[in-house]
């Protein structure tokens, strides 16, 4: 049996968990899931429709919000009871974190962000390094495989089915409950579209030249009902807030249209935008590495191209 940690935020399912379930079903027909806290019960129907037979609900009166060390404790108690071949989770910050607690309590290895898994003795995985610019083939020497599934490596596949629900009471110490979410700071987005759900992102790099240069990008983004993104050079220089940074250490985005203006295409930047449906590049350098990842390109100065594009769209829209 393969056990999958299904992550939820106050009952709202993390869709990446469905991909982890699909990855588990490729290894075995016998897939069970665990959610932490009563609120997680709400995921039963959709995970049943993704092939999970049993949903284990870890219950404790203190498990009312995300408490990673306690999640680890709960999962370990369930593993001891069920003895699965593997425990998987989504390769998200929360998935990686909770399974790292599990691996620590059990003193076993953990393979983070795997795109391929072959169970065996040892287990064999392919996992992401350098924000998935490099893939590592690795052996995992432990009976129980603890692994997370690289975010976009598997599509979630629905099947018809139903998950039965089994509650189990968790034993927790006060140490397990020391670090937990105590409140939420509300919306961090600036009253408009956020990077993660924007359909259009107009992104600027060092080539924009300074903070003033971003006005033209903002205007174009607003016209396309999108938002502004940027490279790390831009946030490090303090031209734009870090929340707008796209890439390995910023946000990973997947809009319909990604316009990269004055961005060279370092792989750490590409790591954040390569899942975009269409990439349009505006760059003075026809040899810029980003050309290899782009669908369309205009060779030229963004300070001319962007205002011209904005004017053309305004004219088209009759504004």
């Amino acid at each position: 049996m393969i056990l999958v940690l299904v992550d939820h935020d106050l009952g709202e399912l993390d869709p990446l968990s469905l991909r982890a379930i699909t990855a588990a079903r490729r290894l075995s027909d016998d897939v069970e899931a665990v959610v932490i806290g009563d609120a997680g019960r709400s995921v039963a129907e959709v995970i049943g429709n993704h092939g999970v037979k049993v949903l284990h609900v870890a219950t404790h009166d203190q498990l009312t919000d995300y408490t990673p060390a306690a999640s680890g404790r709960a999962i370990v108690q369930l593993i001891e009871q069920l003895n699965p071949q593997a425990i998987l989770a989504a390769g998200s910050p929360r998935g990686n974190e909770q399974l790292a607690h599990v691996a620590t309590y059990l003193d076993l290895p953990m393979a983070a962000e795997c795109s391929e898994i072959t169970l065996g003795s040892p287990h064999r995985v392919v996992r992401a390094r350098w924000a998935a610019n490099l893939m590592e083939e690795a052996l995992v020497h432990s009976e129980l495989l603890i692994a997370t599934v690289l975010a976009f490596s598997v599509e979630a596949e629905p099947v018809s089915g139903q998950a039965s629900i089994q509650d189990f009471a968790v034993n927790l110490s006060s140490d397990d409950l020391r670090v937990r979410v105590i409140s939420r700071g509300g919306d961090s987005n600036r009253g408009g579209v956020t990077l993660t759900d924007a359909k259009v992102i107009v992104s600027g790099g060092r080539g924009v030249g300074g903070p003033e240069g971003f006005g033209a990008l903002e205007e174009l983004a607003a016209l396309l009902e999108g938002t502004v993104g940027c490279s790390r050079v831009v946030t490090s220089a303090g031209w734009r807030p870090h929340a707008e940074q796209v890439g390995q250490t910023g946000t990973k985005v997947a809009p319909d249209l990604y316009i990269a203006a004055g961005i060279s295409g370092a792989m750490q930047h590409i790591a954040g935008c390569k899942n975009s449906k269409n990439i349009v590049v505006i760059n003075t350098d026809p040899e810029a590495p980003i050309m290899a990842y782009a669908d369309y390109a205009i060779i030229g100065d963004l300070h001319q191209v962007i205002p011209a594009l904005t004017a053309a769209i305004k004219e088209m829209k009759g504004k």
Partner: protein
Amino acid sequence: MNVLVCLKRVPLAGSTFLLTPDSKDIDTKHLGFGISPHEENAVEAGVQLVEQMGGSLTLLTLGPTEAEEQLRSQLAIGASRAILLETDGEDWDPQATAAALVEAVKAEETQFDLLLFGAESADSAGYQIHIRLAHALGLPIVTNVKSMKIENGIAECERVVGTTREIYQTPLPAVITVRDGLNIPRYPSVPGRIQARKKPVDHKKPTAQVPKLEKVSLSVAPSNTAGAQVLGKGAEAVPALVEVLKTIGILA
């Protein structure tokens, strides 16, 4: 306030990777080295805390002898001393690395109030060394922190998840892992660089372990497009782009 920052020497790659002939490692002949960006933020946070509250900042790394370069350049930013756990150059797996770091922390006379880490290392990105260390030392851990405030022995930390911000509180001593964006790391000053040459770096030989997560080989992930269709030069190419935006459904 005594702060420890754990950091890792990594190659600074540009737009592609070259691998060694046996595909086991990155060919670093033509590459410079640095530390993971998140860790630069950790060092900056450590320097700021010691500036505000006094105390000491210690750096700790496990890596090859050459990792002394990275320790020196971070010492130039403001840390007081550094510890280098010397390996023969091979990457250690997360469990072995964590065990060696734990041993080094336990051997210290200094009681650290705050142990700062990057959220993940840039190269191997295992997402776990800090969690293993925190449990081994019996300390609470908050990860992926984008802003923090320390008052009266309590750290209040913010972490961004999607469009919301989660707030955590933990008493010190604690382990905190930080992300790029926490602050803007400063560049070392010239006097800073000169002082750094004289600051103490302790070299130690940690005990190796058989890896349980064993690297077999590396491969470069294929780029997924055939390259760009060039629409033209400068503003003259704008009409062609407008047509493209219509075709892909962005413009009606």
